[in-house]
């Protein structure tokens, strides 16, 4: 067969395995007309309408209140999806386009991994199982505690896949994690094409070897990846959004491998582990081999009342003073933005929340050790790590702190091999079940680790 002309080859790289709106194709009307006429691209309806139930074929939304109607004088109204409108409007008049032309080639990289660090025996075990899962196109759950060194655990598997000319995707719920992960992966896989995708990123995926993306970016993919690694499978939005598992499944090729990562599986995942519906490898130890810090419980009488009256209980100020005297840096978690703000004013410590404009700046300043403490809502609960810090939660009994959140927050402490212990303190008024379970989790993981020694 003759090679396709260069333009077609380039378009194949851009469009293969994707579901794109017309404006996302970013081609001239003339080229667009040519591509449709020669069936190189084909439209798929954006909204499926059967028995008066609408389904958005990009985000799989089916909730009636997340569809809108645009009236028209001349034709029937247009139905559009509100759920994924931030990525451009999908409607009954705005189809999604898929590539039907020749499949693009990807340069094979024989030795993609240029990393010479060492894995712990447990990391090694997880790595080998992942390679097996890739070879046998099956699923695998890596159940690893916070700080187990999961990124390095993935290296061997990713390298194996790429050397077999397989396309790999790492999907994670947070853009912060994409930004942290991408430069590390580029450094350790220097010869491959990698694309980091999140809302607002400027990078493009032209059939790259490795795509590192927020889970939402997968809405633009169909049958694209041979290996899909879903990071923090228990975390928002994967957990709350029932349509996202469908989206992940669609983004994968028919015969492909799915790897799930979690430190805190939800009930449904725990059931699947217990009933052996999904092969699981458990890593109860941190990469540095030291146990997880066990949370200290500090009950405070009338904590809620005191905070409402803008009084900070002495036990808390004492904890803060101790850190300041011993020059320990710390994170203080608050259940609400309002409380974070009040505490920030009182304690003269900066605070961050999901929408704070200087969020990235403050996080970076904290990491660079220019700030010694930070007050935060649950946004810093996962993903982002700082070496050598202590953590405390104010109102750990608040409902926003469920078991997974508490475990993740406790998991922020003691991450560094040079400083593997860190203090974790829960300040509360009435002990919650989540708190008890979170502490039990830590104790269980530590004894599981002990048994492995």
């Amino acid at each position, binding site marked *: 067969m003759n090679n396709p002309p260069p333009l077609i080859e380039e378009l194949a790289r851009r469009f293969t395995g994707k579901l794109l709106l017309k404006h996302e194709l970013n081609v001239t009307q003339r080229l667009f007309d040519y591509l449709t006429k020669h069936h190189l691209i084909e439209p798929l309806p954006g909204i499926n309408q059967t028995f008066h139930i609408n389904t958005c074929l990009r985000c799989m939304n089916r909730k009636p*209140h*997340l569809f*809108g*109607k*645009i*009236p*028209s004088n001349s034709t029937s109204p*247009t139905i*559009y999806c*509100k759920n994924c*409108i*931030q990525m*451009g*409007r999908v*409607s009954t*008049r705005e189809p999604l386009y898929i590539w039907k032309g020749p499949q693009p080639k990807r340069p094979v990289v024989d030795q993609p991994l240029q990393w010479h660090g060492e894995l712990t025996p447990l990391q090694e075990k997880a790595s080998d199982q992942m390679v097996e899962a890739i070879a046998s196109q099956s699923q695998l759950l890596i159940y690893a505690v916070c700080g187990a060194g999961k990124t390095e655990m993935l290296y061997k598997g990713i390298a194996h896949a790429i050397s077999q000319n397989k396309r790999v995707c790492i999907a994670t719920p947070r853009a912060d994690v994409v930004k942290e992960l991408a430069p590390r992966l580029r450094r350790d896989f220097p010869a491959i094409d990698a694309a980091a995708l999140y809302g607002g990123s400027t990078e493009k995926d032209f059939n790259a070897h490795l795509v590192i993306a927020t889970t939402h970016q997968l809405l633009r993919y169909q049958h694209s990846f041979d290996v899909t690694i879903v990071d923090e499978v228990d975390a928002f939005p994967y957990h709350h959004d029932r349509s996202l598992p469908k989206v992940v499944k669609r983004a994968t090729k028919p015969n492909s491998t799915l790897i799930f990562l979690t430190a805190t599986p939800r009930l449904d995942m725990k059931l699947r582990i217990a009933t052996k519906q999904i092969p699981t490898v458990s890593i109860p130890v941190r990469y540095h081999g030291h146990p997880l810090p066990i949370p200290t419980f500090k009950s405070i009488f009338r904590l809620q009342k005191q905070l409402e009256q803008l009084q900070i209980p002495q036990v808390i100020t004492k904890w803060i003073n101790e850190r300041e005297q011993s020059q320990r840096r710390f994170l203080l978690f608050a259940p609400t933005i309002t409380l974070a703000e009040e505490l920030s004013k009182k304690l003269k410590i900066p605070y961050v929340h999901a929408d704070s404009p200087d969020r990235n700046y403050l996080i970076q300043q904290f990491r660079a050790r220019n700030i010694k403490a930070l007050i935060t809502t649950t946004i810093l609960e996962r993903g982002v790590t700082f070496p050598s810090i202590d953590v405390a939660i104010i109102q750990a009994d608040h409902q926003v702190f469920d078991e997974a959140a508490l475990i993740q927050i406790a998991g922020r402490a003691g991450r560094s091999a040079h400083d593997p212990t860190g203090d974790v303190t829960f300040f509360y008024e009435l002990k919650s079940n989540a708190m008890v379970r979170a502490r039990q989790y830590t104790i269980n993981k530590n004894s599981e680790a002990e048994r492995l020694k």
Partner: protein
Amino acid sequence: MYCHICFKSMQEETTWKDLLTPKLFEYICTECEDQFERNSSPTCQKCMKRSEASICHDCKLWQQILTTDPLEQNISIYTYNDFMKDAIARFKYRGDYEIQMVWRKIILETFKKYFIHDKLTIMPIPLSEERHQERGFNQAEALATSITYEPDTKTLIRIDSGKQSKKSRYERMHSANPFQTTQPPPKHILLIDDIFTTGTTIRQCAQTLKQAGAQSIKSLTLIRS
């Protein structure tokens, strides 16, 4: 009912405040509603720009450029804060048509307060055919239907499609008028638009209409930026 901005169910979050003061809009939750900011005085008497002087600098400048200002008065409801910016971006650029449901009631109320006795013809600022096709609707027309089922969309048309937002302030104040009339205009007109920034667009419309024989032009805009 679900909030048209944040999509949360509103039964779940009825607060004491809702019970004390009946909800203004049934399409928006209290939390979102609180984030829109009403235009507050002191403002220019003519265009509602925030201004200590009774006639603002902009309006004086227009007077100079056009000799007589074709626009009699502009009334705006909200200021352009970040929350509004996001809402308008979703409405106009992403094309979330139904977001305008949250403003329908206040637009009608504002119309009744200022213009009900004036016997005005409601006329949304037109979009070019191209942009209308692309977006699927005209946002000004969508807002105008809060006041009347049949706003006048025939008299005025827009020819070019140059993007206002890409031009500098000077360019916008001096750019060529893209509006034309297709039939003799009604005598008294209320122009409707989403946002009043420099006033160029509204005044270009007003000028075109006046030259074609209209007697008085006022405007009602959702936002004064």
